[in-house]
């Protein structure tokens, strides 16, 4: 899966550490999600969606074949 986390975070001028604090995860996890190395669980995806006030489908999308 790919995601728009990096661009949305940058738009709000949050650092990865800031976003990690807001989500209750580590900075390494935020980095792994942004670089598409880790797909968050459903509860975490919903948490991200709530934080950015966007639907999950507007945040995450399948990688192009």
């Amino acid at each position: 899966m790919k995601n728009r986390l990096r661009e949305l975070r940058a738009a709000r001028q949050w650092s990865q550490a800031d976003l990690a604090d807001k989500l209750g995860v580590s900075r390494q996890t935020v980095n792994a999600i942004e670089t598409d190395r880790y797909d968050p669980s459903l509860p975490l995806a919903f948490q991200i969606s709530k934080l950015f006030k966007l639907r999950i489908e507007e945040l995450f999308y399948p990688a192009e074949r």
Partner: protein
Amino acid sequence: MHAKPNVPGAIFLGNKDYSWTMDWKVNGWLFLAAVISGASDIMFPHLVRQWSLPWRMVIVLAPFGAILLWMGSLARWIRGMDEMHRRITTAAVLFAVSATFFFVTLWHGLERAGFFEALIPGRASWDINTIGHSFLLLTLFYFVGHTVFNRRYE
């Protein structure tokens, strides 16, 4: 704001996240088990063997009580991690336990078959059968496993 989750680096000596307090909180009981076991290995042949059976059992079983407490503190530490670190650390612990079990049983088999005796005739037993040995192997295999599993997410 959420409470900061536990991070694996907190028990890695030399890591920027290393915390002596957290390392002791997580692994203190395991260290104690290794020390008690080591002390009893030294004392047993000469001193403890003369004690009554109930006291000998207390000495032999004491490290295992500490190990059970260590398992509890390890589980609590892992539960306090975020989901990604919990996945990596659980995999590393599973690998460490499996690899230690495999290594110890293989080594014991080779020792019993006389392999090491054939390698170096006349040397003392090389059997690794103490908690101290297992402690060292668990630590080594945990760091190996964690390094391997963490790579995917770096």
